[in-house]
């Protein structure tokens, strides 16, 4: 469906923003590019959208490529860029009519308005919309062309939780009707809930890919046990691996995190170990592993450093 091989992009001979990315997206999939800001997500998606030329590598979408079939491809794709500001003095309906007019086959504006819960705002100027409504309109301008593949660059950045959920519903609905989606995000929960398949990108390279479940089990377990001791013992991280069922160990700022498959075996053993050594626990929590943990495990950094 969407294929790219060995994608590279160097800006003006300076920064190498994308350093060899391979992606394969199948029909009907919702594919996520997850990574921190500046990882090369936008550059990658804009190359796929035909807005940037790759320095090297190949792109094939629906069996077509940008060099020979650009006009046909544009008819088949729907695009929402990061932070496009649509004309503020046009109404929502006028904006959709304008974008629909670019496509040989477009969906009736009323249908799209209805589907994206914008009917009420149809005659309001774009400048008067809230952030969430503006974002829904941006996605609507992509959907009005009746696309087969939808590209969304950071579709929920800066939105409130309710608006984010509305955007997710729109994406799921498009997907349930047979559409294919590629989206970029730096929200792990978004990637985890929305995407069928994820590639984690860092410094212009794919550092891991798989379904959310695969990625998480790749960390060494679906659960995390995090604890802190009153006084930090002088033991290597490897020390904790002797506990039963521990798949990974990570120490950060006095807190030690263990990725485990079966917490009911690990925790009693941990408590015994602590008691034997005469240490005291300051904190003990357990939670489900997340994609954030996957990223931290792979890079030693957090996804969002804020």
């Amino acid at each position, binding site marked *: 469906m969407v294929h790219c091989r060995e994608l590279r992009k160097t800006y003006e001979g300076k920064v190498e923003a994308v350093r060899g990315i391979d992606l394969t997206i199948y*029909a009907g999939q919702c594919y996520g590019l997850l990574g921190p800001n500046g990882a090369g997500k936008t550059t990658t998606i804009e190359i796929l*959208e*035909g*807005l*940037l030329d790759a320095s090297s590598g190949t792109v094939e979408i*629906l*069996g*077509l490529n940008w060099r020979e079939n650009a*006009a046909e491809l*544009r*008819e*088949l*794709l729907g*695009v929402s*860029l990061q*932070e*496009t*500001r*649509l*004309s503020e*003095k*046009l109404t929502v309906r*006028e*904006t959709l*009519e*304008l*974008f*629909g*007019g*670019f*496509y*040989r*086959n*477009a*969906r*009736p504006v009323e*249908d799209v308005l209805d589907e994206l819960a914008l009917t009420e705002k149809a005659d309001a100027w774009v400048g008067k919309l809230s952030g969430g409504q503006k974002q829904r309109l941006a996605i609507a*301008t992509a959907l009005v*062309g*009746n696309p*087969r593949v939808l590209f969304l660059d950071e579709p929920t950045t800066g939105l409130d939780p309710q608006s984010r959920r509305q955007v997710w519903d729109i994406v799921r609905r498009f997907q349930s*009707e*047979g*559409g294919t989606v590629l989206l970029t995000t730096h929200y792990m929960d978004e990637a985890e809930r929305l995407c069928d398949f994820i590639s984690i990108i860092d410094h212009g390279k794919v550092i891991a890919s798989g379904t959310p479940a695969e990625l998480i089990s790749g960390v060494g377990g679906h659960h995390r046990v995090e604890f802190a001791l009153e006084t930090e013992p002088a033991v290597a991280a490897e020390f904790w691996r002797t506990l039963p069922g521990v798949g990974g160990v990570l120490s950060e700022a006095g807190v030690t995190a263990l990725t485990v498959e079966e917490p009911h075996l690990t925790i009693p053993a941990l408590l015994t170990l602590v008691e034997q050594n005469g240490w005291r626990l300051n904190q003990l929590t357990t939670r489900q592993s997340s994609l954030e943990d996957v990223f931290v495990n792979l890079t030693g950094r957090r996804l969002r450093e804020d």
Partner: protein
Amino acid sequence: MIDEPREIQAERRVRTVLVHGRWTGYRMLLMARLKEMFREPEVIFWIFLFPILLALGLGIAFRNKPAEAVRIVIVQQPGSERIAELLGHSPDLQTLRVAVQPPAQADLNFRLGKFDVELVPRGAGVEYVYDPARPESVLARSLADSALQAGAGSKPAVSTISRVNSEPGSRYIDFLIPGLLGMNLMGSGMWGIGFAIVEMRQRKLLKRYVATPMGRGDFLLALATSRLILMIAELGLVLGFGVVAFHMRVMGSWWAIVLVSCLGALSFAALGLLTASRAQKIETVSGIMNVVMMPMWIFSGIFFSYERFPAAVIPLIKLLPLTALNDMLRAIILEGSSLSSQGAPLAVICVWGGISFFCAVRFFRWT
């Protein structure tokens, strides 16, 4: 591979799909552009109200004033009635305002400028008190003198007739209106196109547009069309204002005027496109435009004739597009020239427009 999409289409929920013709995108772009412009109050002001206010202001300031009355004061003493009576017989009576006042008051009022000349009876003759530094005083002295001489029965040595000529066509406002029209076509062409494009680029709207199947030619064509529609309105308003408010007479054909204005509008639109072809910020393009337009504001004969500049630079001035446009508009509107007599300025404006458009399209950055 070509058949594969159809199969997948069939699996999807059946939904209504409109089929759009070749020109739908262009039509939508044009309508959106016009709506956006007319919803921007500043546009209405700068394009329509501003030139009219300017014409009105300058037209009033430089209007041909009715001949002003010459104010004469006669010092009240023996002989003053005779002088007043002689002045009363003057053929220029309607332009003379004559008063008789006691000496002290007459002196004071002359000094304060309430009278232009003071007449003091001296026996059978008259003494003129006037100020050679005040043109109206000099004029009043000579008018009073000729009135007195004529009243006393002296015959002119040379017989003369005077005929009044202040017909429309030769006044400052007649010179000004075509210049304002040209200036307006330049300004709205450059700002209208240049600003719109850079703003869209800055907002990433241009990039968003090229991510759709929008025809890039359609986009430029829609911009050009919106300029022409606005141009017709500007032309009608500015020239119509001159005709209605200042009784201007349009000597040449309206078709020639419309055609020349179209060429001017398109040419400056192309120049605007060129200045905006790569700029990423409004501030940048606004600077470039001022640099481009400044020489034309000064040299191209908007408010005064460029003949005032040294003869050596006039051929260069004539190569500026606004000079060509203003010259053509004045020739057609004021002199009734035909389009075919305007070969040189027509060529100048077409070359500017053509080269600008070619370069603009070549260097244009959509993203």
